[in-house]
């Protein structure tokens, strides 16, 4: 026997139960998403007494910025008690040149690969993809030896070099794909108007590249600022970036564990990528969809 379901039954009990399931799921996800961020912010604003008393989810009864100040300038690592500040400045000194250099070189590479066909560009393309996906572990030890050979192991220069090198493959692919997707007529027209190699690049392409530049910028800022592995491998205590400094503060063994200072330090470390995102986020979302995720 064939049971023919009545169309209206969809609006009946089964559908209402479905709605309950949907909303419960959404509530759980909301909690999953928000709880860590909430705990971080709230804990960073509480005095330790409140945390020890077990008021873990409550809003701070006496909000204080003292943990923030401590995290910034007086928190102790195993070695010194200067807080996060030295790490912050090291990270800035690593971030700015690495981002500028890698975006500049990658956009130029992408331009050449997309428009100026030459022998070997297919091979280069394959090397790029390989470079983008290679596990960092493989590069680690040869890099250590390379930097030692150059005499910049442990220096900020060395870290900048590593970040530029490792950022190039993925950024070059990003720019190449973006440029290759532009109408060729655009370049032909500019060439007829007398624009040369640099003219096409600087006056025609770069002004169009705001979204893809935003993606490149976000990738590099978050990638470099958030890096931890290269920081511990390629830096020494005076050149530790902020993430490594954060790790050393939170994991410092002496004394009582100050959760509020730990959380303030965590928050401060995450603030830079978040701020860049707030400024460039809209462009980033647009750029992300205009080519970065096309398989």
């Amino acid at each position, binding site marked *: 026997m064939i049971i023919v379901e009545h169309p209206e039954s969809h609006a009946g009990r089964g559908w209402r139960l479905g709605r309950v399931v949907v909303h419960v799921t959404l509530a759980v996800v909301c909690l999953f998403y928000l709880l860590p961020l909430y705990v971080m912010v709230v804990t960073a604003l509480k005095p330790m007494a409140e945390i020890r008393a077990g008021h873990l989810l409550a809003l701070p009864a006496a909000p204080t910025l003292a943990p923030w100040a401590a995290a910034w300038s007086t928190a102790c690592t195993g070695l010194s008690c200067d807080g996060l500040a030295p790490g912050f400045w090291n990270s800035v000194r690593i971030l700015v040149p690495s981002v500028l250099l890698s975006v500049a070189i990658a956009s130029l590479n992408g331009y050449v690969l997309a428009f100026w066909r030459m022998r070997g560009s297919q091979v280069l393309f394959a*090397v790029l993809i390989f470079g983008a996906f290679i596990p960092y572990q493989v590069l680690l030890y040869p890099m250590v030896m390379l930097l030692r050979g150059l005499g910049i192991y442990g220096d900020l220069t060395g870290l900048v070099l590593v970040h530029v090198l490792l950022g190039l493959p993925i950024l070059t692919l990003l720019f190449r794909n973006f440029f290759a997707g532009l109408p060729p007529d655009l370049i032909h027209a500019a060439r007829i108007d007398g624009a040369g190699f640099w003219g096409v690049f600087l006056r025609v392409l770069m002004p169009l590249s705001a979204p893809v530049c935003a993606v490149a910028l976000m990738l590099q800022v978050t990638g470099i600022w*958030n890096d931890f592995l290269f920081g511990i491998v390629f830096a020494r205590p005076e050149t530790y970036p902020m993430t490594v400094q954060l790790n050393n503060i939170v994991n410092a063994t002496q004394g009582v564990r100050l959760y509020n200072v730990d959380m303030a330090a965590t928050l401060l470390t995450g603030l830079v990528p978040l701020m860049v995102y707030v400024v460039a986020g809209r462009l980033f979302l647009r750029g992300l969809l205009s080519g970065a995720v096309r398989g």
Partner: protein
Amino acid sequence: MTRKIFVRLALVPAISILATLALVSIAGAIWFALMNRTLRSPEYEFVGAYNFLRLLRDSRFFNALEISALWELITVTGTLGLAVLLSVLIYETVQKPLWRNVICFAFLVPVLLPRVAAAFIWRFMYSPSLGVINYLCGLVGIGPVEFLADPSLALISVAVVDIWQWGLFFTVIVLKLMETLPRDPIEAAMLDNARRWEIHAYVTLPMLKGPLVSLALVKAVESLRSFDLIFVMTGGGPGKATETLDLYAYQMGINMGGRISYASAMSLLLLVVTTIAFTVIWKAGKKWAA
């Protein structure tokens, strides 16, 4: 100077940089792997395939291989599972563009945090004495759970943090991809009286197979780089329960005695295994999506 020469000259720095990166590094890794070099002592000699042969008898290496495979499996399926489920739910329940934009904007916050930062937040939340999660568990009568110290829970507990960062980010991408789909097949399905979940299971998600396979690959590559998260949360412990290949290679190469030759051999094997595995899975995925 002709244009062609000029263009080639412009490429010289780029190519030399890439050559340094890809070729010299890999050549260097192979070179080291054939020696018995350490960071401690300047003396070394060639030992041929000795490091590779010893790896094949190293049970800790195979444990790390297994943990890495498990880590890949849990984080990739978890991230994509959450992203698909959540983007369908948001697609169905949130209609106003403004709210969708707010959600998209907010869901990107976790992935922007340094993994080290995410690790510390969650480590605090998992804490048996002052952690929020155990506090909530206590409210429903579940005694303090040692999320990071229990070998059977540790890997999952760390993976949750990874999924928190990446699953919500991928939700945004999948949602945006769903919005770009043509409306006609969806409306046809609605006319045929399909249920909402049927529309997604049989119409919208199959149309997204290709991008989903790409996203899975991106996540798989990204998961290989989760060193900092695991390192900070458990350091590979308890015991060896969360020791992936990255961690083992780091312990060997940097922490314990700086045995960089052995670590190089290990990372080369990792490179070979992942290249083969990803190529096979990628081809199969493309075939399935086509």
